[in-house]
């Protein structure tokens, strides 16, 4: 089956709504599971890995949740296709680097994606738009229970589910949410918030997980500890912290509009200007400017209906999406990509009216030196 035909079209993916999706892009709960007394994927020989893959693949495919799904071995995908999956946050960057003996099973709704032979034999994820950590946990819990009956995972009464890395030991759970926090960044409160989040044992990372930059004011918050407390305790704690971060972000936006409205208008207006008029633009600059455009939508300078369009632009201007959607050539150089990206942005933004600060409630804040 062709991957690009199977995947939900970008416009549709970005129209999916969820609770708190002004600030929370998506929620994910992942469980790590392993076969007992079988070398972990990173340690075993290729034959071990192949055997584990052959054992797991049919069982995962037979799950009722996976009735309509796509399963593929990593060596059957082109580098570009793998990168598309990474850009959609369906598989990890580590997994994309793997070949024969590793694979994935993805359901049609893209609400479940199971990686086989990543760092662990199974990394199963439930994905939901907006803030839906509890729902994602319940969904993956049910899937795990069925798989457990059919496979029997490595488990010890004392240590829980046994994983390749001791950092995942116990519950094997990683609960994470992707947040858009331009208000906290612009008001320079982000460092303080991230430090507080870190201090309570949660990790904050960039858009593509471990060791990546927080481009486009997007931050991924997740638990680090997996042993010594239950899954529900972990989910509830993160949920509570996220609700507080959301509140801080909302307050920061209100504060910015009260005290520094001109700065915000200027950022949004310039972002629109550059994105709709450039002829070559890097991925990094695009992401940072699209973040400001999204803020413009949230505060009412741009129509609310255009948020999904801005989100779609964020997705389709990523390198692999750009190349698969807009050119038949397999490999573009970075310079060629930057030109193509600018072309796509100019074309798409023709349909979006200029940001209008007068559209905000009232006549807009009065102009004074103190605003700037």
């Amino acid at each position: 089956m062709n991957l690009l035909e199977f995947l939900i079209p970008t416009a549709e993916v970005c129209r999916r709504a969820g609770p708190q999706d002004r600030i929370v892009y998506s929620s994910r709960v992942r469980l790590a599971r392993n076969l007992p007394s079988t070398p972990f994927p990173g340690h075993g020989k290729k034959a071990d890995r192949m055997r584990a893959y052959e054992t797991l693949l049919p069982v995962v495919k037979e799950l009722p949740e996976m009735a309509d799904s796509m399963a593929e071995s990593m060596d059957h995908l082109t580098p570009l296709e793998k990168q598309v999956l990474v850009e959609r946050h369906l598989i990890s960057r580590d997994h994309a680097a793997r070949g024969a003996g590793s694979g994935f099973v993805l359901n049609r709704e893209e609400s479940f994606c199971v990686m086989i032979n990543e760092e662990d034999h199974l990394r199963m994820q439930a994905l939901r738009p907006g803030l839906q950590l509890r729902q994602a946990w319940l969904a993956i819990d049910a899937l795990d229970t069925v798989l457990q009956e059919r496979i029997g995972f490595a488990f010890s009464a004392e240590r829980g589910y046994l994983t390749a890395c001791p950092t995942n030991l116990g519950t094997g759970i990683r609960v994470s949410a992707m947040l858009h926090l331009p208000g906290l960044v612009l008001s320079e409160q982000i460092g303080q918030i991230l430090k507080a989040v870190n201090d309570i044992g949660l990790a904050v990372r960039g858009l593509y997980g471990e060791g990546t930059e927080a481009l486009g004011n997007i931050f991924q918050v997740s638990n680090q500890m997996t042993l010594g407390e239950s899954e529900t305790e972990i989910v509830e704690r993160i949920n509570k912290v996220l609700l507080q971060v959301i509140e801080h972000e909302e307050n920061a936006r209100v504060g910015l509009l009260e005290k520094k409205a001109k700065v915000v208008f200027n950022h949004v207006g310039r972002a629109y200007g550059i994105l709709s008029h450039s002829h070559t633009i890097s991925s990094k600059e695009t992401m940072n400017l699209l973040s400001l455009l999204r803020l413009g939508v949230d505060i009412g300078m741009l129509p609310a209906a255009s948020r999904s369009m801005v989100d779609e632009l964020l997705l389709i201007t990523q390198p692999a999406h750009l190349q698969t959607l807009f050119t038949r050539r397999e490999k573009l150089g970075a310079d060629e990509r930057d030109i193509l990206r600018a072309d796509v942005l100019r074309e798409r933004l023709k349909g979006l009216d200029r940001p209008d600060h007068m559209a905000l409630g009232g006549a807009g804040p009065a102009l004074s030196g103190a605003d700037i």
Partner: protein
Amino acid sequence: MVCQLCKQKEATVHLTQIVDETMKKLDLCEACAKQKGVNDPAGFSFAELLLGAAESPEATTEAVDELRCKRCGHTQADFKKAGRLGCSDCYTVFADALEGLLKGMHRGTRHRGKIPAAMRRQVEQEAILERLNGELSAAIVREDFEQAARLRDEIKVAKATV
């Protein structure tokens, strides 16, 4: 002061942390500190460092490094180097080295989450066994041999049903 890791360069990064209620100190040169990610607050590098290098030299004798998992061939040295286990059996083989590592890494060292349905009975049995063994040791210490004999019989029965 010389770096404890490379033992060549001057140590400029000094770390102190309480591990198992004892104070552990670590002196590293800048290159080693960077390589081990000491500046990265998101990592658990300190715990790994302690296990890998800062543990008192007497404790990490060659014999311990040669500890090997019969199932997958992973050695303790492999574990220290990669920070990963080779298979699920490794958790039993390297249990001693793991205990300290897990303390610094997680909220606790005992699983408190989901238990597979098929394991629930066994987990309960193991908990009972653990309790009985504890009581048995206590009985022996206070030389209550009558009680010890009773406990020994109870343990025998419990073991048979696991």
